[in-house]
């Protein structure tokens, strides 16, 4: 499995350096800022979207699932990183083409993937169509991270699974704690912001 992981990494990372346009696009897509902000913005927009109060309330639930899931996924990645160290590809293999700065935190699981897919899962649980749009952004972001030499594919897959599962678990927990959630939303609604 590990050798297949490294082989797929080499194939994807081997795409770097053939065209400066391609490298620039990958650099943009893999950026810490561009797609993560766009993905989170797309989820946040749901807070205000809805032709009826009921539709908007559902969309607001999607954003809450996404935000809480992403926050806890981040925390879980940090805990796993504290116990498990997998070196970044460019550290383990000096011939790796790197399109980016060189982070030194562990490669496995990918925090970027956990975050992007936690947001995706939160939205997808409530709004499938919007979830698919965000999923496309998450896939582009994480594949670009592999091409740019930041992660192995397995780091991405494990990060994505961790993000999706975390969001799913916390979404179920929020459903159980619905009266509390409704009370909190009522406060925000009192201020005409929900």
């Amino acid at each position, binding site marked *: 499995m590990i050798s297949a992981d490294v082989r797929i990494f080499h194939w994807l990372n081997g795409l770097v350096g053939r065209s400066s346009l391609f490298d620039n696009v990958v650099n943009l897509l893999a950026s810490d*800022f561009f797609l993560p902000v766009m993905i989170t913005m797309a989820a946040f927009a749901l807070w*205000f979207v809805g032709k009826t109060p009921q539709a908007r309330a559902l969309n607001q639930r999607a954003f809450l699932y996404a935000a809480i899931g992403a926050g806890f996924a981040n925390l879980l990645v940090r805990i796993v990183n504290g116990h498990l160290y997998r070196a970044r590809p460019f550290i383990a293999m000096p011939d790796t083409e790197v399109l980016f700065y060189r982070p030194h935190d562990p490669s496995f699981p990918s925090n970027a993937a956990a975050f992007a897919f936690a947001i995706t899962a939160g939205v997808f649980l409530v709004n499938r169509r919007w979830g698919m749009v965000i999923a496309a952004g998450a896939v582009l972001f994480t594949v670009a991270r592999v091409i740019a030499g930041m992660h192995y594919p397995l780091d991405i897959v494990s990060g994505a699974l961790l993000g999706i599962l975390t969001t799913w678990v916390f979404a179920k927990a929020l459903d159980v704690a619905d009266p509390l959630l409704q009370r909190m939303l009522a406060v925000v609604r009192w201020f*005409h912001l*929900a």
Partner: protein
Amino acid sequence: MFSLAIDYVILVTVATCGVIQLAAAWSGLRGLLIARHARASYALGTALIVGAWAWFVAIGDPAKPGDLTKIEGAEQFGLFLAGAAAGTLLTALASSVTQWRAPLRRDRSLEASPEGLDALRDDVWLRRIATRFSRKASRD
């Protein structure tokens, strides 16, 4: 321009204002629109998002190769939420100022209007909040 964290919060704040303009125009929340008409709001929202990114890229690309500047994931998410909250408040205030005299609605009693964000279909945020607090003060 400032530290990367502050630049990032500014990016998110301004982009949030743009996103809210698009979402509010789409959902008919006229009280949240900074421009009076939906079409102008779509244009303004797009301009704010593109402008925020253009500014952020112009002041220096933190993702350029060899640059070690970065915001750690959890911190980035916290800063995003702060920027989004600031952008929401800024939009509520700005739209209240620009739409204060707009003929959105005649009956301003709280009973006659829906709750939450839906009240902003036909009134501005600041007036709803002021009415709410003045009602509460007179009751107390």
